[in-house]
């Protein structure tokens, strides 16, 4: 049956049909759904790991045992997993191993716009790049064939538009593959003597993979009809934009494998079409390759290094006629994402902002605390950087910073890579105050379980890290737990912990209001006779509260009755139903 599937679901289906038996991943937009969709299959193992490095090593272990395996991550997650990656390129695999990495050009939900193809080149690992959902499914199967035939992990590189666009897919059947595990120190113990012996294998493998890239059909030429006197080399979603713009009128070399790139195929294509344009998002990977093999192409001279492309990008670059449209004169206010009504993070941020505390931030929903009116954050770098950064900040600042600087990090991010920073704080003793925003879930990526929640990816009971015990055991003596709905308590505890001359941790604990088990209370309303329009509640930044005709108004479709605003109002104007 034909079905509409997002690229990530189709990719999960492809991994499943190819017999993938173990997936270990860490969530990250736009990669998360691959693992979530795979978790729906009952006859394969699937897990959330604490971070991408652990996930990749777990996937390798499964491959070593002889099963087909995979790990999935977003582009910045691959930085975390880069350590095992470069050596797994040397060891190769036993059962096939796929590494799914999803880039986010345009940074819809990311802190940078790095191009993961660099990693494929640097680690000498082949990389396939699907351009729609059907290819995502097909390439998953092809990736396992390549992995086992050439003895290498294989990348499948997604991007936001391929990962999150639905297109029609035809499903197939699952076939299982199992290999024997045989001890082989020369292949799997990468101590210098063995690694030196293994490196030539890697280079020879790339040579063979280049031959594969020339002839296997994963890269294909689509002839044009002669309308244009040039040809285009492209891949991924850019291929779709090229076809949308030119249809079948222009000759296209569509690359499905972006590392290693073919040589003869590109030379033959260029010889046939004459002038060649390379259209690729982000960095000039294909363009640089073409120039290295003496094929003259036009790439980044005409197309941006920044952001996502579209058919409009291409039409503009080639000077095609602009489509007629209507432009309005009125300026439309922006509508940025924000913390939800009732979000437990808001209370903590309100207190931090009120006390003008310097806050080193981290990656998650709580990054939204940087937005007006709270403006509560000073930094956001990468997973875990808040904790390690705070330590350095206080070592440099001493008494000048210690008493009014904290960091905030979510429960999942703390498990991912915050705990190592906290160990550094305990070990090298900085007078740092770390706030763990424990909302009992991985929020921003859409509610994934993590080691602190007590549940696994399937929602079944699992091991549970006790944050208080963990902090104590690594040497933090002062560990306090607060309810972020209780602003007075938060303020008191923050002041006390900042004043201490020792490392401390405050766990701000309340579950995400979007969790199914969190039952909303009845919405509040504003008693307009009591409300004097002082706008103190507007400083709280709750999306359910707006200001109309001189009074605060509560949107009862958004309000979940958390009641924090009622505590802020000096005139007791917020009332719950029945009052």
């Amino acid at each position, binding site marked *: 049956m034909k079905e*509409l599937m997002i690229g990530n679901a189709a990719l999960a289906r492809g991994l499943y049909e190819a017999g993938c038996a173990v997936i270990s991943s860490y969530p990250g937009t736009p990669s998360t759904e691959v693992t979530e969709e795979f978790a729906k299959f009952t006859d394969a193992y699937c897990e959330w790991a604490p971070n991408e490095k652990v996930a990749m090593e777990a996937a390798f272990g499964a491959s070593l045992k002889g099963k087909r395996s995979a790990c999935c991550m977003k582009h910045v997650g691959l930085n975390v997993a880069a350590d095992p990656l470069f050596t797994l390129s040397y060891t190769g695999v036993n059962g096939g191993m796929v590494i799914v990495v999803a880039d986010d050009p345009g940074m819809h*939900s990311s802190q940078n716009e790095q191009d993961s193809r660099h990693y494929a080149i640097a680690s000498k690992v082949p990389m396939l790049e699907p351009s729609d959902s059907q290819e995502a499914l097909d390439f998953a199967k092809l990736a396992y064939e390549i992995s086992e035939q050439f003895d290498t992990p294989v990348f499948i590189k997604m991007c936001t538009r391929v990962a999150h666009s639905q297109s029609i897919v035809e499903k197939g059947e699952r076939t299982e593959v199992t290999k024997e595990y045989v001890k082989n120190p020369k292949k799997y113990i990468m101590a210098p003597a063995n690694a030196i012996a293994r490196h030539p294998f890697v280079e020879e493998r790339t040579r063979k993979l280049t031959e594969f890239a020339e002839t296997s059909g994963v890269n294909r030429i689509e002839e044009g009809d002669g309308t244009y006197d040039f040809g285009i080399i492209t891949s991924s979603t850019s291929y779709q934009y090229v076809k*949308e713009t030119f249809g079948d009128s222009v000759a296209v070399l569509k690359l499905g494998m972006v590392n290693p790139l073919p040589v003869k195929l590109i030379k033959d294509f260029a010889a046939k079409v004459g002038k060649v344009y390379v259209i690729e998002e982000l960095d000039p990977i294909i363009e640089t390759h073409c120039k290295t093999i003496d094929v003259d192409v036009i790439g980044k001279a005409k197309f941006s290094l920044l952001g996502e492309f579209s058919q409009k990008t291409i039409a503009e670059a080639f000077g095609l006629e602009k489509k007629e449209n209507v432009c309005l004169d*009125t300026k439309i206010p922006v509508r940025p*994402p924000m913390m939800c009504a009732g979000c437990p993070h808001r209370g903590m941020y309100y207190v931090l902002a009120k006390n003008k505390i310097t806050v080193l931030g981290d990656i998650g929903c709580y990054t939204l605390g940087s937005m007006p009116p709270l403006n509560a954050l000073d930094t956001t770098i990468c997973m875990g950087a808040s904790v390690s950064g705070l330590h350095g900040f206080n070592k440099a600042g001493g008494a000048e910073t210690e008493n009014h600087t904290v960091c905030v990090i979510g429960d999942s991010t703390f498990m991912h890579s915050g705990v190592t920073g906290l160990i550094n704080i305990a070990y090298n003793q900085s007078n740092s105050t770390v706030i763990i925003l424990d909302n009992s879930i991985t929020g921003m990526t859409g509610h994934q379980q993590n080691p602190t929640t007590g549940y696994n990816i399937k929602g079944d009971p699992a091991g549970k890290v006790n944050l208080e015990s963990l902090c104590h055991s690594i040497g933090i003596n002062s560990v306090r737990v607060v309810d972020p709905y209780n602003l007075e308590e938060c303020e008191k505890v923050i002041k006390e912990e900042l004043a201490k001359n020792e490392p401390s941790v405050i766990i701000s604990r309340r579950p995400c209001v979007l969790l199914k088990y969190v039952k909303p209370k009845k919405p509040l309303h504003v008693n307009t006779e009591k409300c004097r329009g002082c706008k103190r509640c507007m400083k709280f930044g709750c999306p359910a509260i707006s200001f109309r005709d001189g009074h605060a108004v509560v949107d009862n479709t958004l309000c979940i009755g958390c009641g924090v605003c009622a505590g802020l109002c000096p005139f007791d104007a917020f009332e719950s139903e029945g009052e």
Partner: protein
Amino acid sequence: MATKNIMIVGVGGQGSLLASKLLGRLLVDEGLDVKVSEVHGMSQRGGSVVTYVKFGDKVYSPVIEDGEADFIVSFEKIEAARYTAKLKKGGTVIVNTQQIDPMPVIIGSESYPAEILEEMKDKGVHVDAIDALALATEAGSAKACNIVLMGRLAKYFDIPYEKWEAAIEKCVKPNFIDINKKAFSLGYHH
């Protein structure tokens, strides 16, 4: 057939996912090539959200660009305005008249352009405005705005009413089929 382009826009959390699922299901059942594209992640947190639905004999790009949309279905007034540049000449905007203040308006740094639909009409945009929230509430759930708007959209298509209903049955949990069918009908007949 030539590719038709529909945009579904609104505020994160308003239920555009179900609307696009319904359209996708219906169009695949019609034997067409379909692409549906949306961005997950940060945009879900009360931000402006947009879904592209494209269908025809062969669809390539998953996104809709300036001057390409045949329809914009908007769950909120200024969200319709935000994406008007994407509308094709002669295209239609179906808009729920609900006003949801974005954060710059809430904190008073900007004002909500309440008369924006008038400007759109003045500039020749075909605006089909309905109070989808009231109709959804009448159907039994304020959350059914999305299906009220789909009912309104269906008026512009040649696809038989029963096929839309069949698609609703496939996309909605059994307990909510009746409410959604009623919401669809209210949008269609309003």
